[in-house]
Every structure is written in structure tokens, then in C-alpha cells.
């Protein structure tokens, strides 16, 4: 029963000593053990129990924080000291991180309990979690379907209540899209809000960590701990972190919601469109004002993203060379053979594809036509948002053109890339974006995307929370949960 509580409720329960963190942790561990979703790459049972004992002692002594003793699942992209950190890749399968990511450190210091490391598309590249070296993850709403990606394990774990919440990372939609497909709440903060130190880099200028939770209220609680400047990350912003829970209950009467017409065109599933339009009506009934906005360059988001991200990843992944750590091929003949085979054998298809695209696009003679051009378009995409936010407070639309699709259903990569058509722009612009459960189509969850202006996480969380006080989509659970 305990697993049906939100983080906010669990926090109260722990504080009142209705149950201990050890009891709670054991409960989740048992659920993980019984689960067949393949949501976890590593379950850290011993660590979790010792952290839970530690948390209980803090709770008893009265020096606990809000999140002390709360069990969570950590995306396997965050370095965790002494624990395998694979990022879903064979090339890092042997990698035991000797250090903690800033985020891991922060959650530890808060006294939280790490249940394990969640499954993900290899090195965060993918939209279905089918690119994991550790096999695909099943969507708890329909096990024949994908949970989305790349934070598929985290999303499935929260949806199936194998964990109170989970961490995720979002480079092109990797928090929002799986949150949408799994019927939970996911927040990608403004670029620079959460430290990237110790988060295995995919595309450095786009990567951002955020919470994957049951509700907006939980997201606010968790973001309070996650957010903040880190002197180890030059791209993190030295900007005060507000208490994100403080304004959750503000009225949204008069809130201006922009609906980009480009997000409701060809390719959007009818069932999804219906749910989104219905939820926008719900906001209207709550006093929000809806108007159409235009993001004319959003059509270029996919090609722009698939230049910028591969360029950066082709360089970021060069360190995975079989020399110092990670997978190394057997009996290398010479240095070239060591590089060639370690990387050929260690990386999966999609990762290799993106490394090749990026290497090509950065090559002499192509740089201007691809990388520089993409940077210019990226600027135009940001300008579109800037203009829109002069008129509206929040932009809303679908997260994904479809609900969860079946495993092995999408064979070609370009079709798969289209799954992120509505989420990529947000990363290219560096804006905060959120996915909240908005209804169902054919018994599969549909997420509503909310995009805010820079550093407006507080607004997004407030709007989402107000929606969740009026609707119950976020408390629907998959069968047998």
C-alpha cells in the first residue's frame, strides 16, 4: 500500500513515524524484485538498506530534511561512487564510477535512499528504450509496448510504483516523452538549473537533468534539492533557487496559454489531439486564457537537433576508447586495432550512427554547411519562443505525436526521430518543459506538454499542480499496481 503514496505523503508518513524508511525501502525492493519490466540495470539493495537505516536515525533524532528516507531510482547516466554506471552501454558495462555526480551527492546528503540505477537507451540516445545494452523496458500500461526513452527505466519504475520518484535526463525529450508514454509527471528544467557534473554527457549544450514523479507537487519537492549552482559545472547558473512548493497553490485565473498551431498539424495522432484539446478546455474552465501562437521554425527542430546533438556526442564519446576504463576488445594487435574494435564492439548501432553523423558534420569542408547552419537555426528557434513569451505565460501542446508504440514496431531511425518532434525545440532553446498526465487514448496515457519561459519552473509547477487538483489523471495506475 505504501507505494501508492506520493513523495509528499511519504515524507509526512516518515516524519510521523507511521512507517520507517527501512520498511518503505524493503517494500519497494520487494516490488522491484517481483517486477518484470526490466526497469533497473542495477539494484543496490545493500546500499539502499544502509541508507534507509541512516535516514531512520536522522528521522528519529529530528535532523531530517523533507526528502530524508525517501526511496528513489537513479538513471544509470549519473555517476555513483563504487557502483556500476553504465549509461545503458556495453562500453561502460565494466565501469564502476570512482566518484559521485553532483546530483548523486546532493540526493545522498539529503538522506535519500537509492534503490538502484535505471535502464535507459544507450548513452541517452533513443526514444523507446530499445537501444539499451541491457534490453528493452516494458511499459507498465501494456507490456508489449515501449516506455519511451531515453529515461525509459525511470519512467516505467515510477509508473509501476517501483520507486517513489526517479531521476531523468532530457537532451531532446528524454524525460518528457517517457513521462508522457507512462502516464506520469516529468520536468526538464531550464538549461543550467541542475548541475551536469557527473552526468555522462550526450550533447552538452542540450543535456539537462530533472525529476520524474507522480505529481507536480512531488516534482517541486524533488527539484528543490536537485536545482542549484555548481562550481564544478561552468554552464550551471549562479541563480537563487526558489522554494518550488511555495506557489503551487496560486490561482491560474488569467494565465495566458499559447497553443502553437504548428504542434497540431499532420502526424499528430487523433486520439492524442483529442486529449490535449480537452485538457486545454479544462484550463479554460479554470480561468486561463487560451490563444494561438506561432513557432514557425519548429519544423526545423528535428534536422537541427540531429546535427547539434551528434556533433557534440561525436566528441563527448571519444573518451570511451578502451584505454583507461570501460570495455576493451580482446587481444588488440596495435593501438588502432584497440580503438577500432573496442568502440565497434562496445557501442550499439544508434550510438555509432550518431557518432558518424557528428564526425561527418564537423569535418573540414562541411562544418559551415552543417554545424554553423544548425547553430543559426537554433538561434531562430529560440527567437520564436522569445516572441511567443512576450504574449503568453505558458505554451501547451502534445509531448509526443502518439501514445506508447509496440516494441519493435518502429524499425527505421528517422521515423523514431519523429517521436521527439514536439520536444526537441525546448532543448535547442534551453527552456524548461514539462509533461503531465492529461488523459488516455485507447487505454494508453497521453501527456500534455507545458513549456515555460527561462527560469519559470515555478510557473510550470504551479500550473501543473492546479491542473492536478482539478483532474485525477496522475493518480491512475496501471493494472495490478
Amino acid at each position, binding site marked *: 500500500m505504501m507505494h501508492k503514496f506520493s513523495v509528499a505523503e511519504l515524507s509526512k508518513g516518515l516524519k510521523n513515524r507511521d512507517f520507517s524508511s527501512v520498511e518503505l525501502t524493503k517494500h519497494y525492493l520487494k516490488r522491484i524484485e517481483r517486477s518484470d519490466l526490466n526497469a533497473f540495470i542495477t539494484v543496490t539493495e545493500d546500499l539502499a538498506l544502509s541508507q534507509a537505516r541512516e535516514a531512520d536515525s536522522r528521522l528519529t533524532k529530528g535532523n531530517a530534511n523533507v526528502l530524508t528516507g525517501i526511496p528513489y531510482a537513479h538513471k544509470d547516466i*549519473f*555517476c555513483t561512487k563504487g557502483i556500476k*554506471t553504465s*549509461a545503458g552501454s556495453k562500453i*561502460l558495462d565494466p*565501469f564502476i*564510477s*570512482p*566518484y559521485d*555526480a553532483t546530483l548523486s551527492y546532493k540526493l545522498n546528503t539529503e538522506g535519500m535512499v537509492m534503490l538502484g540505477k535505471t535502464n535507459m537507451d544507450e548513452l541517452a540516445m533513443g526514444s523507446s528504450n530499445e537501444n539499451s545494452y541491457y534490453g528493452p523496458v516494458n511499459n507498465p500500461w501494456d507490456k508489449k509496448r515501449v516506455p519511451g526513452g531515453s529515461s525509459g527505466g525511470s519512467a516505467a519504475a515510477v509508473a509501476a510504483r517501483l520507486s517513489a520518484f526517479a531521476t531523468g535526463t532530457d537532451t531532446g525529450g528524454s524525460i518528457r516523452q517517457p513521462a508522457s508514454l507512462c502516464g506520469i509527471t516529468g520536468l526538464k528544467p531550464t538549461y543550467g538549473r541542475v548541475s*551536469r*557534473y*557527473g*552526468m*555522462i*554527457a550526450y*550533447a*552538452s*549544450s542540450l543535456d539537462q537533468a530533472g525529476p520524474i514523479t507522480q505529481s507536480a507537487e512531488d516534482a517541486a519537492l524533488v527539484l528543490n534539492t536537485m536545482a542549484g549552482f555548481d*562550481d*564544478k*559545472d*561552468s*554552464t550551471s547558473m549562479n541563480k537563487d533557487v526558489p522554494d518550488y512548493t511555495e506557489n503551487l497553490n496560486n490561482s491560474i485565473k488569467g494565465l495566458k496559454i499559447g497553443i502553437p498551431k504548428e504542434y497540431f498539424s499532420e502526424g499528430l495522432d487523433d486520439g492524442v489531439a483529442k486529449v490535449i484539446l480537452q485538457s486545454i478546455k479544462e484550463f479554460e474552465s479554470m480561468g486561463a486564457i487560451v490563444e494561438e501562437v506561432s513557432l514557425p521554425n519548429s519544423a526545423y527542430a528535428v534536422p537541427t537537433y540531429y546535427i547539434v546533438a551528434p*556533433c*557534440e556526442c*561525436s*566528441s563527448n*564519446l*571519444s*573518451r*570511451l*576508447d578502451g*584505454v*583507461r*576504463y570501460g570495455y576493451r576488445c580482446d587481444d588488440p594487435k596495435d*593501438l588502432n586495432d584497440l*580503438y577500432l574494435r573496442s568502440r565497434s564492439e562496445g557501442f550499439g548501432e544508434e550510438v555509432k550512427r550518431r557518432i558518424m553523423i557528428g*564526425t561527418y558534420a*564537423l*569535418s*573540414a569542408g562541411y*562544418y559551415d554547411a552543417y*554545424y554553423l547552419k544548425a547553430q543559426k537555426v537554433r538561434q531562430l528557434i529560440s527567437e520564436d519562443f522569445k516572441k511567443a513569451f512576450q504574449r503568453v505565460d505558458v505554451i501547451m501542446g502534445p509531448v509526443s505525436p502518439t501514445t506508447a508504440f509496440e516494441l519493435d514496431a518502429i524499425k527505421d531511425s528517422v521515423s523514431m526521430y519523429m517521436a521527439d518532434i514536439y520536444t526537441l525545440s525546448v532543448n535547442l532553446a534551453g527552456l524548461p518543459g514539462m509533461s503531465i498526465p492529461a488523459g488516455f487514448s485507447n487505454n494508453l496515457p497521453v501527456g500534455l506538454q507545458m513549456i515555460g519561459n527561462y527560469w519559470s519552473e515555478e510557473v510550470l509547477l504551479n500550473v501543473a499542480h492546479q491542473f492536478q487538483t482539478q483532474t485525477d489523471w496522475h493518480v491512475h495506475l496501471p493494472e495490478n499496481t
Partner: protein
Amino acid sequence: MVWETVIGLEIHSQLSTKSKIFSGASTSFGAEPNTQACAVDLGLPGVLPVLNKEAVMMALRFGLAVNAKINQHSIFARKNYFYPDLPKGYQISQFEIPIVGQGEIEISIAEGDTKMIGITRAHLEEDAGKSIHDMYKDFTAIDLNRAGTPLLEIVSEPDMSNAKEAVAYAKKIHALVQYIGICDGNMQEGSFRCDANVSIRKKGAKELGTRAELKNINSFKFLEKAINLEVERQQDVLEDGEKVVQETRLYDDMKNETRSMRSKEEANDYRYFPDPDLLPVDIDDALLSQIRTTLPELPTEKKSRYISEFGLNSYDAENLTSQKAFADFFESMLYEKAEAKLSANWIMGELSAALNKNQMNIKDSPISAKELSGLVKRITDETISGKIAKDVFMTMWECQRSADEIIESQGLKQMTDIAAIEPIIDKVIANNSTQVEQYRAGNKKLLGFFVGQVMKETQGKANPKQVNQLLNEKLS
């Protein structure tokens, strides 16, 4: 065929920051392999670089010292290539917009002439680690202590027209970086390394010839040799009717040859792009003027001052200022009130010779500036002669005692008492009647013989001036 040579230098100057350019690990030399490489230097997954502000300050000091245009908005770029001692698979460097733009520096060339050498740019970058190929059989060992050490790469214009000029330029930069306190200049430890771009063309031709880049040069002597060898090689190639290939060549000091390392075709495409992990470096005017006020007197300024203030000749002034340690030594002697010109002579003469002979750095000289001043002062006040001073100097070098102690204990004080010198002169005249006759017959050169005899009798302690004077009187 008459050829002319065109040379440009790329100098890698290791900045003497305490920690690395993008991590907190120490930069000190000589530690156990891989003990000064932290997670960032090792290129572990997830780590991020954080720019060391001190390195930026040092680059700016250099820029201001060579009157360069400072790019107040510069960016770091990634230079991508695979090598085992390059942990991230890319080197963080500056490409399109370096922090230091166009500047210039004056060098001295033959016969006191000077020449301005253009500096194209100077940019910040991180050093790679070290590959050690001879430590284990069948394996290459990697030491990453050096990985991430801050470097300032100083690129010159192709303004030098022979090896001597190239060496003069390299020495000038070498002196400058030490003057402004940004590099220890230690070439053995690799803190200061030169690559030379060398090409030749028909005299008077406008177009540059195809160049070869000479790498791995770690002394000024090798720089001169390598350039001369390369110029000869290129002349032979062209005079045989062949073409010079654009390539990187290694200088081998053991075999005294340059040999091809890789050609342009084999060169890497480094796929430079702005490093998304680092913000652009923005420098405001206030910081620049603040740095300007902390710059010390620079070698060229110092040289002019030595000439005008102390009457040193241009050659000595150049030599004294060519290394900061020498200028410091000289100025310490002035502080001790030693006479300037004599001090300069002793530094450039006896002291330099002794240091060279023992392959020592002036910083490690067993005779301090204060002690050498003690000796020079005894020459100035005529306590001892210059000749005796040389013996005292040797004793000082060996025994580390002060000049006064040595003069006192060995009784080397100059005889200035005429009453004591006169009988000795009389004795010399009496014992050498043949020479006296010859002298008086007009062989004035024999005066030196008599002086020598007197000095011998007095063990060099007689005041040569007095001896000369008395001999002149008595022999005339």
C-alpha cells in the same frame, strides 16, 4: 641560385599556475606517474572542465607585454583526435578567437641592430599527458600528470630570416615570460618548447615556399642546428629540381638530422568546434588596466635603462637583461652598492664562466649577489687588485666564505705602503741589471717584466698602479 629563408615559430610556454587549467590538480613537475591526475584530467565519464582564472590572467599579462590586441571575448574550442595520452579524445584549446591577438616584440640582431617580430596570436590550451615507450616491453606506459597543464601557445609571424634570428626571438620570448612571471622557462622539464616552421624561396620572391614544421626542439642550440639543417635540406631538394613537401619533421639531436614524421595528407582533421562545456571568456577594461599596473619593467625597457643610467654598452646590457635571473642578480648587486659597470663585468665574466663550467643556473650560484658585491667593493676601494680578486673569487666559489674573510685570512690585502714596496722595487732593479740596461736603451716593453717581478715578490699584493709609477721613476 640565391635563396632566402622564412621562419615562423610556435612556442608552447607552460604557465606557472599552481593548479591545472581545467581542474584543481597540482601542476608541479616530477611527481610519481599518475599521482597528479584527478577525475577531470583522467577524462572520466561525466566530468566537466572549469577554467582556472589564473591562467587567463597570465595570458593577459603576456598579451599586454607584447602590445597585443586583447580579444575581450574569446572562446575555447575542442581539437579532436585520438591518442592514448589525450584522455578525452580532444584537447581543449582556442581556435577561432584566441585570447591574445596581433602583437610584436623587438629582437637584437647582428651589430646592435634590432628587428620587430610580429606575433600572430597567443592562445590558451591544455597540455596532453606523456607516452613512455621504453618502460615496458610490448607496452606503452601513460603518465597523465602533465595532462591539463596550462599552456600558452605563442605563434609568431614568419618574420625571421635565419636561424640566428629565430634563436634571438625564442630567447626574447623565453626571457619575457620569465620577467612577467608566467613561466619558469625550464626547457629540460619541457616548460618552454619550440616548433619551427621553415621554408625557403628564391631571393626576392613574394610567394612563400612550402614549409616544413620542425618539432621536438628543446634547446636554443638545437633550434639553431635544426633550422640550419632543414634549410640545407630544402635547398638540396629544390636544387635537385624536386619539390618540398608540406610535412611535420622531427629533429633528432643524436643523429643531427630532421626526418619526416607525417605529411599534410596524413594530418588529422581536428574537427574544431566551440566547447559546449565552457562559457566564453569575457574580459573587461578594468581588469586589463589592473593587470597593466602589475607588469614589471620589461627586458627592452631595462636594457635602455642600463645603458643610459649605468653607462653599460649595448652588448652587456642585452646580455644582462636577456635572462631575468641575471638582471635580478645585477640589480641585487646594485642594491648592495657595488659599482655598476664592474658588477656587470664580473657577472658576465667570472661568474658566468664558473656557472657554465659547472652547468649551473645563476639562481643556484654558490656565490650570492651580496657576496659578489663584497668582492667588487674591495676592487673598487683598491683593497685588492683585479688579479687577486680572481683568486679570491675561486676561493669564494669553493669555500663559500666572504671576500673579506678570505682577504684577511690569506693576507691578500694590497700593499699600498710605499715604504714597503720601495725596497722590493730596488731589489728587482738590482737583480736584473741586464734588463735595466736594455730598458734604458729604449726597450720600454720591459716595464711589464719588472712589474711582473715585483708582483711575484709580493705575491701579487702590490698595488699595480703604485708599482708602475715607482718603476717609471726609478728606471728613468
